[in-house]
């Protein structure tokens, strides 16, 4: 019984809290420098980004990450809720569920963004 409970807990931890990812658009405030190819992730990679990224506060986002002027955005299900998301070329993201905005940063996601080592 104890083994089954432990196995279930491991299964829960291993599950991504993100599902039903859909990409709705790409936008750039500086199209000459920040292009679609700088944030060319598919739905599976967006899910992987949020699984690997750490939740961070706004101060950490500001101090430790670069704010890229282009992003992908879309919808997903997060912890059972319908939410919207952004992922920026600077390896940052947000998930906004009704009434709650969470910031994410990922310093180990270089492979998802074409392999450059942005924060190392």
């Amino acid at each position, binding site marked *: 019984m104890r083994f089954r409970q432990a196995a279930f807990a491991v299964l829960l931890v291993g599950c991504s809290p993100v599902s039903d990812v859909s990409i709705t658009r790409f936008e750039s405030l500086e199209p000459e*420098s920040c292009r679609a190819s700088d944030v060319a992730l598919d739905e599976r990679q967006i899910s992987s980004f949020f699984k690997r990224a750490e939740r961070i506060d706004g101060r950490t986002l500001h101090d430790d990450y670069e704010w890229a002027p282009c992003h992908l955005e879309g919808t997903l299900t997060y912890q059972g809720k319908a939410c919207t998301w952004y992922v920026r070329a600077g390896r940052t993201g947000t998930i906004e569920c009704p009434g709650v905005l969470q910031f994410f940063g990922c310093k180990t996601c270089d492979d998802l963004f074409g392999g450059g080592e942005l924060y190392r």
Partner: protein
Amino acid sequence: MSSIDNEGMLISSKVELRRFPAIEQGDLRSVRALVVHQTDAPTAQHTFNSYRNKGNGAHFLIEKDGAIYQTASMKKRCYHVGRLLRSKCQAVDKSTCDAVKIKAIESLTWELQFRALDRYERTKNYPERYPMNADSLGIELVGKHLDETHYEKVTALQNQSLQWLVSELYGHFSLTSKDVYTHPQISYKNVDEAGSAVWQ
């Protein structure tokens, strides 16, 4: 009218001195510019708490009610600008850029571009480039980061205090309004940080 004492502190009845040595990072040899920021904190006290532990910070902090605190000596550097400088010639007057160099940089991916631009900009002197930690003072305004592209609006009392502080610093360091920047103008930060700050 204010004065600056031997410790680099601004002496005036309008400024409360709350110096945090933890955010001072070596000597600041010249002040050529001012950079206006927002804290992403709800009160000045939240920022004081973070200044006890963390290396990043700015020289002044203005609370929502307009209270001005000096949090670091103006003779000391603070880490307030960020790692990578934007290109001033690209933003202000592209004809002043090295056209060949900029064309080569613009063909790179975004992350390679911003590193290359930073290296290129650091070969210049101010005011040809944007200010760095080594030649600028930072002024923080208390205000929360709301979402991907918005910060809280700067209050009228904060703007009133900012205008007074900036005009005092113009006099002490021979600066003009051309030497005042918001953080996202000079570095890769949320575009609305200090976007509603008014200093002239």
